[in-house]
């Protein structure tokens, strides 16, 4: 077997896959639709790679490193709209993931909790639930555990095992402590933590891919607070580029082609093998990269879109879509947001962002209050504790309520950079057949390819979880010392549509049965010998933890199977 691969996407999954393949002596071509934003990439050691990012909020608002909503739109609608024949109800950037070499990890919040043992057997443990396609994973925690260890070491993760609750350690056992101790906890987070303790919760330092000491030639984080949505100006954050892709390119066996808009995986006539990956450049010229092995890592929406666009006579419903599951089970992390107001400036941005984690609302819960809400169980997720927000963000959202003018300006004085601090519950989202990505029948991108259309509504499970768990979060925030008042926004209740979030999964679920899943446990398309999916598309369920660490660990597992030939 030839040791050559084409990897589509250079984010968390693609970079890790390229790194592992190169480490095992493979030659790899990585195709990325974004551009490189890190000067010195591929030419310097990762500690010396520069950045064009800064603590500059305007740049974020101008979509730096993101797809443009006019050139590459998504469209969306709710399940109810789909049922009544509405083709789409919104179109544009719609909170797409980043498009740049390194993907969204260039500006992620870098929080790296592990999934729990119970997350791999939700169906077996809790039984089916109406209206959802809950499934067990074909792998367990123990299968991922060694890959978690490798990724945490390489990425550089901070945390404190001794502070983790007993149930967390039981559900996500660790052989070693974290490579680095945690950053100092922000003052605002410490106030919210006090309130959480008063209602019986156990906050602890949030594992994060952020240097707390100088490591691998990169400096320690200095707590500037502008993390999520910002590129780290000092290179203190471990990401797909500095931790994986740059070292991979420096082996000499990996080349990255940027601004490559992949639109088709070409197969042999019988459809059993991929032969090439086709892409267009920004001017629309067509290019083909011959492929012995193809690894798809474009993130769930784009991977599903590419499989669907690759339909052929042998694969009429889309490449590898005999199960009709490609694009289905699209899952987003909904958030329940809670914020508390204080009578003084608590400096919520003066710390590494959201420095604390709480696991008390992970669940599952089955008490009478759950039954009363009409579901057999609810699962929640982690709480990320202690967020603030920079001023343009605050000003735009406040204008939704206060309009503009003096009242708005007065509210800005006490905004989320000063007197308001918040938390988010990251909700498990159950997979549903009708939450799906398909090809928009009318809307196309600037190259003439159909846009991804996302049909989505939360399940009753998520709504019940938001009501019950949001209420408990609210109590914790009301109990915070000197908290004047608190407010909760349970997104799954407020919105019948997509929550715009960088946390996505589903669309090409892995499983043993080719009739109900898209890939094998090894990530290979059931029906194609040499096409693998390495990103979060493969997740059969989507537990309520920040997904990047698991995306990377799973991509490493899949890439190792490809490289050593053990993949089935």
């Amino acid at each position, binding site marked *: 077997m030839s040791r050559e691969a084409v990897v589509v996407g250079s984010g968390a999954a693609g970079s890790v896959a390229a790194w592992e393949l190169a480490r095992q002596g493979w030659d790899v071509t990585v195709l990325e639709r974004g551009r490189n934003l890190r000067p010195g990439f591929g030419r310097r050691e990762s500690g010396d790679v520069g950045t064009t990012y*800064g603590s500059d909020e305007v740049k974020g*608002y101008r979509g730096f490193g993101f797809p443009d909503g006019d050139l590459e739109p998504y469209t969306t609608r709710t399940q109810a709209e789909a049922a009544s024949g509405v083709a789409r109800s919104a179109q544009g*950037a719609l909170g797409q993931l980043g498009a740049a070499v390194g993907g969204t990890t260039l500006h992620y919040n870098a929080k790296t909790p592990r999934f729990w043992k119970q997350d791999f057997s939700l169906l077996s443990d809790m039984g089916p639930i109406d209206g959802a396609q809950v499934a067990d994973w074909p792998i367990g925690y123990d299968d991922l555990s060694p890959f978690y260890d490798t990724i945490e070491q390489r990425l550089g993760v901070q945390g404190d095992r001794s502070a983790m609750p007993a149930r967390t350690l039981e559900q996500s056992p660790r052989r070693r402590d974290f490579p680095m101790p945690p950053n100092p906890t922000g003052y605002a987070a410490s106030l919210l933590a006090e309130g959480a303790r008063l209602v019986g919760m156990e906050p602890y330092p949030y594992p994060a891919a952020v240097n707390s000491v100088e490591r691998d030639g990169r400096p320690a984080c200095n707590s500037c607070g502008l993390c999520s949505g910002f590129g780290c100006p000092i290179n203190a954050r471990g990401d797909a580029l500095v931790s994986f892709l740059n070292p991979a390119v420096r082996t000499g066996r990996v080349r990255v082609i940027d601004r490559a808009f992949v639109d088709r995986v070409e197969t042999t006539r019988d459809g059993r093998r991929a032969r090439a990956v086709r892409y267009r450049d920004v001017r629309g010229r067509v290019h083909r990269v011959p492929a012995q092995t193809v690894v798809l890592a474009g993130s769930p929406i784009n991977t599903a879109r590419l499989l669907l666009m690759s339909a052929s006579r042998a694969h009429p419903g889309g490449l590898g879509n005999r199960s009709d599951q490609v694009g289905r089970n699209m899952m987003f992390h909904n958030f329940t947001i809670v914020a508390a107001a*204080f009578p003084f400036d608590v400096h919520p941005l003066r710390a590494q962002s959201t420095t604390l984690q709480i696991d008390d609302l992970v669940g599952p819960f089955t008490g009478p209050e759950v039954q009363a809400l009409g579901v057999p169980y609810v699962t929640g997720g982690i709480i990320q504790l202690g967020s603030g927000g920079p001023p343009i963000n605050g000003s735009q*959202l406040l204008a939704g309520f206060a309009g503009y003018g003096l009242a708005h300006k007065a509210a*800005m004085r006490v905004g989320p950079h000063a007197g308001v601090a918040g938390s988010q519950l990251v909700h498990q989202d159950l997979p549903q057949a009708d939450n799906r990505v398909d090809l928009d029948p009318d809307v196309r991108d600037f190259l003439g390819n159909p846009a991804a259309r996302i049909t989505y509504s939360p399940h009753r499970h998520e709504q019940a979880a938001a009501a019950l768990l949001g209420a408990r979060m609210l109590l914790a925030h009301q109990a915070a010392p000197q908290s004047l008042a608190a407010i909760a926004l349970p997104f799954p209740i407020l919105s019948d549509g997509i929550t715009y979030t960088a946390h996505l999964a589903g669309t090409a679920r892995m499983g043993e049965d080719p009739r109900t899943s898209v890939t094998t446990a090894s990530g290979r398309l059931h029906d194609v010998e040499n096409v693998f999916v390495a990103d979060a598309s493969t997740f059969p369920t989507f537990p309520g933890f920040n997904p990047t660490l698991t995306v990377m660990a799973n991509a490493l597992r899949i890439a190792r199977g490809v490289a050593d030939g053990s993949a089935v």
Partner: protein
Amino acid sequence: MTPDTPTTALPWPSRRGLLAGAALGAVALVALPGLPSVAVPVGRDRNRYLSEEQLATLAAVVDRVVPGEDGTPGALEVGAHESIAALLGAFRTDPPRIYAGGPFSDRAGSRVNHFERFLPLDAYEQKAWKRKVRRFQETYTVGLDALAASTPDFAALPGPARDLVLQSSQDPAVTAMMGLAVTHAFEGTWGAPEYGGNRDTLGWQAIGFEGDRQPRGYTEDEVLNPPLEPLPVLDVTGALAAYGPALALATSEASMGLLALADGDARVLADRVQALLGDAAGVLDDVAAGVRDGDPGGALGELLDGLLGGRDDRDTTEAER
């Protein structure tokens, strides 16, 4: 009011304290120059797309978006209208004034201000931004001219009279222009000064925001023991009651998608936020009370149905899932 209106500077709360304890050594390695960039000095006239009259009207507009009459600088005083003019004329310089450079300004420990050197755009970004800037130019010029035509002395009117004109205008050209101007005035007031507004960081100072902090960052002591300046209590409680949902949203990554959906149009965003949140303030209070009182019973299910029912009423379609 004119662009020469005197400004009132607020004290910069803790800057001096922050200067102590600076730790720069660890980050010197990464203070590399950005991508190759051609620095073209941007004169006051070269980058302007608007006529003097249009700019004066725009100045009078942004003055109502973030007013200065509470004694702290507003959009006009910090030059937000100049930042909008710079955006409209972004392609008159090379590189275009779209993305400031990185990684550091010179406000927090770097001797070099990388923000001042704007980044070259690649072909994709050129294509995207030329379209966007053309749309902005059209919307502003048509809107500002329509405003000047309907209210010839607009710029000379007192603030409340200008508020009335802007809020009562039914002219789609004016409302479309305001959709952009509100967002852009916020960016010009509270964005980095290199984009042409937030003069001398007065916009940040007026709301107690400390600005970009790299490469200095904060010391451990500054993180653990920040200065706890009191905020006006009445304003806090009033603001939370009135704007709490928006304040909560602003602490969340989830808000980024809402903003992306609005694509820079403040009216669209306001509609989206209001449609999403409705009267969400305290929407969970009753559930919280039920959980706290240990009275789950059947009442909670009815409560959730009630919440969802209220939401479904706002939808245009209804379907059982």
